[in-house]
């Protein structure tokens, strides 16, 4: 068989991404139809920059979900190697040296093969899933930690603020790579330190939710108890499963090497979120509606969580998008240095690192993941920019 021409490759790739296109079109059609009723999210569709960013982000989100979770877009198994396909250029027909050729196999390596003869295209698609399943959640946890500590630091000020700010600055003064090299190693996993850190960090969401319910409903104890109870049961179950790998039902568990990556990323991101939340809190607490809440005898946590936090949502949302982007970059960095994830992993950082070694001769293994990462992070940045512009508008 002849290798495919560039236009044929492009056409075939467009076709393979069909489910992603459909999902994107549906998302956009629905969102634009109801944009006046969707608040800030709806307003995003007034800003061209925001829309482009959102499209880029959602492209990779859908790609990740369809490719990683449902196995739809992939043309070949991401780990299977083929000696004949080593470093072959894009569009090369697929052959296998050993074993019987599988008649159902996709006939081409659309973006060529890497130095071990694996399909670059499929690895790129699978890499999206590696990012999508970690980055948003890691950012969310960083926000929970940052918010739970930043609110009281900004609201009370004084010694508490001095102490927490000192700790935050301590972590911020650490060069990130050094921290990763110290933390994300098999030896550290052996000592169990990541588990202890996870145990502390993962408590924050539970604490956060408990404070949220209690402050809001302490005037109605029966309702409060229901919310608190549900949170405790579900929260502690997930907590045991994720942090301690000790789910009594055996349903929830978290691979230890992923846990350490997760913890490291949350640990690095939280102090920045803390500083942002602290600054916003100090600004918002001077408003009259905070004084009004104080004069009607509201407790501090109610004021922090229900009066201050909702009004800080604009800047926080913008930072959340940026933070997912930054987390993506961090995950890539980890992969680039071969930390944490398994060496076979299709994540973009590792594939870029693999590809760069023969870069002066073969471009095709390193460039697709590089462009993928670039476009996802760029999309998140554009999205944040669009959100910022739109949230400033009213």
């Amino acid at each position, binding site marked *: 068989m002849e290798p495919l021409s560039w236009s044929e490759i492009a056409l075939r790739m467009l076709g393979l991404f069909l489910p992603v296109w459909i999902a994107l079109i549906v998302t956009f059609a629905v969102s634009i139809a109801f944009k006046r009723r969707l608040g800030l999210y709806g307003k995003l569709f*007034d800003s061209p920059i925001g829309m482009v960013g959102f499209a880029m982000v959602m492209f990779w989100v859908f790609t990740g979900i369809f490719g990683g979770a449902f196995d739809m877009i992939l043309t070949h198994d991401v780990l299977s190697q083929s000696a004949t396909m080593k470093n072959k250029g894009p569009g090369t027909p697929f052959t296998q040296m050993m074993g019987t050729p599988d008649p159902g196999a996709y006939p081409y390596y659309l973006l060529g093969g890497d130095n071990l003869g694996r399909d670059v295209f499929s690895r790129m698609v699978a890499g999206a899933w590696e990012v999508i399943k970690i980055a948003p959640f890691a950012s969310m946890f960083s926000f929970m930690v940052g918010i739970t500590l930043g609110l009281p630091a900004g609201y009370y000020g004084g010694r508490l603020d001095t102490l927490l700010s000192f700790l935050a600055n301590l972590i911020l003064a650490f060069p990130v790579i050094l921290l990763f090299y110290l933390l994300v190693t098999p030896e550290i996993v052996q000592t169990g330190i990541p588990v202890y850190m996870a145990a502390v960090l993962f408590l924050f969401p539970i604490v956060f939710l408990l404070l949220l319910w209690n402050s809001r409903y302490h*005037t109605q104890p029966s309702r409060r108890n229901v919310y608190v109870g549900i949170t405790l049961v579900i929260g502690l179950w997930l907590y045991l499963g994720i942090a301690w790998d000790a789910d009594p039902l055996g349903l929830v568990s978290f691979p230890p090497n992923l846990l350490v990556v997760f913890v490291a990323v949350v640990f690095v991101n939280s102090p920045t979120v803390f500083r942002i939340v602290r600054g916003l809190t100090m600004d918002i607490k001077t*408003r009259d509606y905070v004084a009004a809440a*104080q004069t009607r*005898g509201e407790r501090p946590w109610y004021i922090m969580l229900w*009066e201050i936090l909702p009004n800080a949502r604009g800047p926080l949302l913008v930072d959340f998008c940026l933070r997912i982007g930054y987390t993506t970059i961090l995950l890539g960095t980890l992969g680039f240095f071969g930390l944490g994830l398994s060496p076979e992993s299709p994540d973009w950082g590792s594939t870029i690192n693999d590809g760069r070694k023969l870069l002066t001769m073969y471009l095709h293994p390193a460039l697709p993941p590089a462009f993928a990462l670039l476009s996802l992070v760029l999309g998140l940045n554009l999205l944040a920019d669009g959100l910022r512009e739109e949230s400033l508008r009213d």
Partner: protein
Amino acid sequence: MAKLDYDGPILEIENLSISFFTRLREIPAVMDFSVTVQPGEAVGLVGESGCGKSTVALGVMQDLGVNGRIVGGSVRFKGRDLGQMSAAELRDIRGNEIAMIYQEPMASLNPAMRIGKQLIEVPMIHEGISESEAWARALEVVRDVKLPDPERIMRSYPHQLSGGQQQRIVIAMALMSKPSLLILDEPTTALDVTVEAAVVELVKDLGKKYGTSMLFISHNLGLVLETCDRICVMYSGEAVETGSIEDVFDKMQHPYTQALFRSIPLPGADKNTRPLKAIPGNFPLPHERPEGCNFGPRCDYFQAGVCDMGDIPMAGIKGDDRHFTRCLRFAEIDWNAPIEAMAQHAATAPGKVVLKMENLKKYYEVAANALFGGSSGKKVVKANETLSFEARESETLAIVGESGCGKSTFAKVLMGLETATEGQILLDNRNIEQTPIEKRDTQTVADVQMVFQNPFDTLNPSMTVGRQIIRALEVFGIGDTDQARRDEMLRLLDLVKLPREFAERMPRQLSGGQKQRVGIARAFAGGARIVVADEPVSALDVSVQAAVTDLLMEIQRKQKTTLLFISHDLSIVRYLSDRVMVMYLGHVVELGTTDQVFAPPYHPYTEALLSAVPIADTRITKKHIVLEGDVPSAMNPPPGCPFQTRCRWKSEVPGGLCEREVPPVRELVPGHQVKCHLSPEMFDQMEPVITVAAE
């Protein structure tokens, strides 16, 4: 460059229309606006916020930003059309021939540039003179605006000066090139009353001295009366009435002008016998203006089929000097008809004492240097000194004073956000001065509530109006079920005269006055018995102020509330309060019934304050008392009497007593106390500040 010699009108604005363009639509900000400023003349431009008066100023300056554009008419300065000028020609005129003074002095000075440099820049650009020459000129002008120690001030940065000094610098900067036209955009709104009076005085004098024409933009009719020769009243983007001050104030020919005058508390108005008449309805948004007359929907003289058809032109009034009105029916209206009688109320007798303060003191310790503080020593700010008074049921006690007088601190201590340093606060004979709010029981908290100043800040922007009121009900333990609380919330909305649909609205969908009503509803959610109203109407437009004030009075009458009304606006205080407490630098300098405080003998500070407040009534003559300097900082109060640095009676007290000793509290007549060293004879000599000419 040399200035043009020209003896026609300085500024002619003809049929000017300005629009702002947003993504969705064109928003007309100013429509068909005409005004002429003659040499040496001062023209006042009056209107409520959003009426387009500042846009006119920027239109004159040809500085409308990216979205604004002049869509019709012309602006001619000394006969030359500013709209046709090139950028370079405009630069030559700006700052040189036309200068502008703004509302926020701090914001309009470059924070990173020394005052002197900002001043000398003007003549250096426009006249090309040397730096030393410009410096000499600047020194002279700084002296002209009556600033002490000009050399030092020229070398300071803006943040090192007080607000009043900054505004003087802005004025000096405007006068550096001796412009022919000065545009003042609310130049004193950010300043205290006594400082405002001094700045206004200065502007008037300098206008005469330099022969400058002025376009004075303000929302304050009284201020325009004091400074201007002519006035132009604007409403919703249009000029509705222009004419000389006397014609417009005394022979108004437009229903809006009339309604405006009836809604401001002039001397003679009284909450019981002659209540204010608020303008019904709301100011229309620029894109929701009605067909025909913009004021139509709120006008008492509205006639369907006449007032709501097509554009209405300005019509001249025969016999008056350049007096125009934009009303079709002005000839039919009987302008001298007596004000339709408003509901009158019997004065409610004050009941038992509910709140009593005795020798309340509140001192703060602050780091001397906020940023690098710590070891460099602490300073004590004496925010409140020996505050004593009592307040009765259904009584309105006004607390008057300028910024830094300690009125907000007092409110905080009363609310329990701070605890007192010394003395006691008795609520129903229970001590609460040492109980912070988290230790107070629900009933106490619900009893003492507060209405805040800034309507745009008083409601949580991300919670519906209904939710916020329900939350207050929850906290105060009112209603057993969600439904009961919801009903109670709707009842409260009725109480403050808001439609029930507003429960589902977000605060940003409400106007300032409506937000303030929600704030009042929230304060009364727990059936408050004492309400501290911290300047509740000062941020609202004149026409809305009356309505909100009336609402407060009405609820007070119904619920026998004790109202502590904090304000710096003596007109409104005179209108609604039963007793008045005047504060200065943490001290109560005068306390008495409204009549006692507003009539001689006065405390010297009260006297100056009364003289400083502009009153929009041509029949009033005021004694002219201008205080020198600014209010001293509470961090660094003067020794002896707190007011001695600015007091004009100080020389009447022998032996420098004022500089050494804090005066004792003296009761002049029962219920009227004054903190002053002046002898009884001196008090007897005092003349009234405000006199109303016989009608």
